[in-house]
Every structure is written in structure tokens, then in C-alpha cells.
């Protein structure tokens, strides 16, 4: 995944007051230890860095993720099929086909924003969120694919379930996914 190595901006010698660098899907957030006197200067610095820093090609880890499609833990599979005009089997086939890339980690602990969902599977978020969706639920929200990282309210459509633990504060590193990792899904079981 080519991107300017903006992490170097914080780690490097450019500014000593950058405390945290947080890559978003198409953006970057900096946290400063003390507020900079002149924000315009920082913005100019950043634009220069974007133009001049070398590209970074992250060689992430590869995950092959077994999914139990459908059933109680993936019970929106039917509504995704209905919305997309595909059969449940076609939905599963299209969901398994691509290689997904983790393009950001955030929102809640360990959640990976995945790039690569087949546009034919895009399904709007539910109008009424599930109140207690389990961590590990394989989901589709709008044009994005995901795996819920925490148990709790969630508006994305559940199509399956995996046993992977996305976040464990006692693990090193605590988050399973990092930016640049790639994922494939395969069916462990299908229950319609």
C-alpha cells in the first residue's frame, strides 16, 4: 500500500512537539504535546512533508479468516441479499473473493477499516442498530466491510461470525490488525 511515510513526520526530527500520529482512512491526525504557536506553519510543514517524504510500502501480515456465514450471528445476510438483489450464496462468494487491506485502525479499540469490498455488496447501515452485536461479527456497512471489534450497539449488517479476538489489552500488540495488513475470508460453514 503506497503512501507517503507520514509517520516519519512525527518520529523524525521535523517537530519535537508531535506526541501522536494517527492515520485515518484518507487523512492524518496529529496530537501535540503543547499547542503549536502557529498552526499555519504546521500545515505548510505537513504539505511539504507529503510532497517530499519517500513512499512507504507496508508489508503487512496476511490473515486468512474463517467465517461462519449466516445463522443467528449473521442474520442480516438475508437482508443484504434482498438489498443487493443477489442470492445469499452469491453474497458469500463475492464477500470471499477479494483481498482486503486494513487502511486504518480506529473508532473503537482494534477496529480495522477494510478496503476492498465488492461494490455490488454495498448495503446501507441499518436504521435500527443491533443493541448487542458480538465482537467478531463479520459486517457490511455502506460500501465498507468490517469485523466488529467490541460487543455493543452496531448499525452495520451482520453476515457472519469469526472467533478472532480483535483487541486484547494484555496482548502485545493489543490490536490484532495494523495498517497495511491484508485479509481474506473463507467459509467455515454456511447456515441459511
Amino acid at each position: 500500500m503506497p503512501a507517503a511515510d507520514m509517520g516519519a513526520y512525527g518520529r523524525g526530527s521535523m517537530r519535537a512537539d508531535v506526541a501522536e500520529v494517527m492515520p485515518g482512512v484518507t487523512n492524518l491526525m496529529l496530537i501535540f504535546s503543547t499547542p503549536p504557536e502557529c498552526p499555519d506553519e504546521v500545515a505548510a510543514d505537513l504539505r511539504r512533508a507529503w510532497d517530499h517524504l519517500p513512499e512507504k510500502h507496508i508489508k503487512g501480515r496476511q490473515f486468512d479468516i474463517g467465517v461462519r456465514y449466516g445463522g443467528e450471528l449473521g442474520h442480516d445476510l438475508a437482508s443484504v441479499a434482498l438489498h443487493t438483489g443477489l442470492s445469499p450464496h452469491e453474497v458469500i462468494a463475492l464477500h470471499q473473493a477479494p483481498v482486503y487491506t486494513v487502511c486504518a485502525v480506529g473508532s473503537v479499540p482494534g477496529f480495522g477499516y477494510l478496503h476492498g469490498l465488492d461494490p455490488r455488496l454495498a448495503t446501507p447501515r441499518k436504521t435500527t442498530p443491533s443493541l448487542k452485536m458480538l465482537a467478531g461479527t463479520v459486517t457490511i456497512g455502506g460500501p465498507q466491510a468490517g469485523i466488529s471489534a467490541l460487543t455493543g450497539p452496531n448499525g452495520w449488517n451482520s453476515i457472519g461470525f469469526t472467533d478472532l479476538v480483535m483487541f486484547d489489552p494484555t496482548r502485545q500488540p493489543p490490536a490484532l490488525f495494523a495498517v497495511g495488513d491484508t485479509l481474506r475470508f473463507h467459509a467455515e460453514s454456511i447456515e441459511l
Partner: protein
Amino acid sequence: MLNSVQDAGRLGYRHLGVSTSGVMDRLALQCGNMLLNNPAEAACIEIQTFPFSVRFGSQTGFSVTGGHASITLDGKPVLPWFALCACQGDVLRIERPVAGARMYLCIAGGLDVPVVLASRSTQLRGGFGGWQGRPLQKGDELPLCNPYCVDEVGLVPPAQALALKAEGTDEKTVVLRVIPATDYMLFAGDSLKEFGAIGWQITAQSDRVGYRLKGGTLRMREPVELRSYGVVPGIIQVPPSGEPIIQMADANTAGGYPRIATVIEADLWRLAQARIGSFVRLQLCTHAQGLAAAENVQEYLKNARKNIELYRKSFSRRGAGQAGKQA
């Protein structure tokens, strides 16, 4: 609303999706710890549910800061924004604040809960940190680090020392200074006028995650779809309903609603102490004014520290070093 163990926050894990958590009112924690000579990172109990009572298992210094509430120790009234000593077995009771929304109980030496990812704060959404990763329940026994007794000293509460009023608002309206955010210019002109001109009411759907406001409807010039971006406490987002949400300590680390403005860091404690049902005025300010406001807070803390030290010195000269009740 719930009570939980919090400290100054969990820094350095945003890139893994871990929000800072920590106390809503940083200034109250800084004051509470300063009164006890605690390290800045010492953890406290953030109290949002009242009445709250706790029994001391050992003799220790403590302080209660945050808002103004009626407080008793073993039945006798004590003052907030004051350090004093409790004997083993004493019961501290804190009533619903008459001013402010949250109270902070700091203990000399701090609460001895495990440090998880560099902080003792409870990460309520992730279920880790603090006391067993959850809100406190009746009957919980929290271990103390190394309790000690302290001199009885107090300080002028920030609400008095750093009072802020805006023209045309009543005493009760909380004034918050805000800096225009990335998507400010995407809002319709009359919405931008309304944003700063009206009193926004804090709704009951407000908690440690965020404050939902009502009173007006903010509209975009045209609909926008944003990619998820990084969120910090103080960011004011506007969902499609047009009613703004101010993100707070437990906010997700990323979000996608348009950002109209950001409450300056120096005013976040005011918002943390604003009660549900009360009104806030969002007053635009410049980056330089935001820096000056932060400078005022630092000045207040510096003066408070100086006064506490002077008082401690005079106290020990008078040979009354053994302040507080003795067991």
C-alpha cells in the same frame, strides 16, 4: 450515569482505536491531586451518581473537588476543594452538587488499581482498566497506593477564579470558546450565525462519550460524505439531524460527521461541569485566544500551588504539622 476510576487519561494508543478516557474535568483532578501532594498521574474516583458514600479502610488524606456539594465526613460537614484527613472507618458522603455535575474523590497516594496500557483510567467501552474494567458497584473495595495524612489546605475553585461570562447571557449559561473546525465553511451561512448566537441546551442524551445539544438546526450548504477522521474531546460534530454533539472523554477515536468547531481545551472542564438541562453559549475564538486561555489555566494552577506551599510552610512553622484528625 455512573462512577468510575479515572486518571489524567490513556495517551499513546489512539492509533489502535483506544480513546483517552480519563476524568471529564481535568482541572478538578489536577487540583485534587495538588492539594494532596500527589503525583499528577494519581487516579481518583469520578462521581456522577449521588448521593455517593465511601468508608475509609485506613487513615488517609483525601480531597473532594469538581463542583460544589454538601459533603460530610462521619456526619460532620466538610468543604469541597479542601484537603483533610479521614480516620479508619470514617464514612464520607457526597450529596448531589448544587453547582457543577461531577465530583472527584482523590486519595493521598492515589488508588492502587493496575496500570493497563499506561493508565489507570477505566476504558468503559473496551471493558479494561480502572476497577475491573467496569463502573463501580456498591460494595467494591478499592486498594490504596500508600495512604498518608495531609495538612488541611484549600484553594479557590476554578469556577470562581476562572469565571467566564458572555454579553447577553445570564449567570447560569456556560460560555465555551470554540475554534472553527475543518468543515466550518461547509455549513450554511444562517446556520453559522445561529451556531454562535443561541443558547444550546444540554440534553439528557449526554454522558462521558459526548454531549448532545438542542435548540437549533444546523444545515450544510450541500450534503457531504466524509471519510472517517480522528476525533478528540471537544470536537463538535453535526449529524444529519442538525443538532450538534460535543465529543467528550470516552468518544470513539474516529468519526465521520461534519465538524463545525472544537471547544478549546482550556474550557473542557466547564463543559464537564455543565449540567443536563442547562444552556451553553458557543463563542468563536481565535487560535491565539485559545492559547491565552490555556495560559490562564496554567497561571491559576501555579498560583494555587504557590499558596498551598506557603500555607504548608507556615503551618509547620507554627508547629501544627500534625493536621487533621488522628486515629
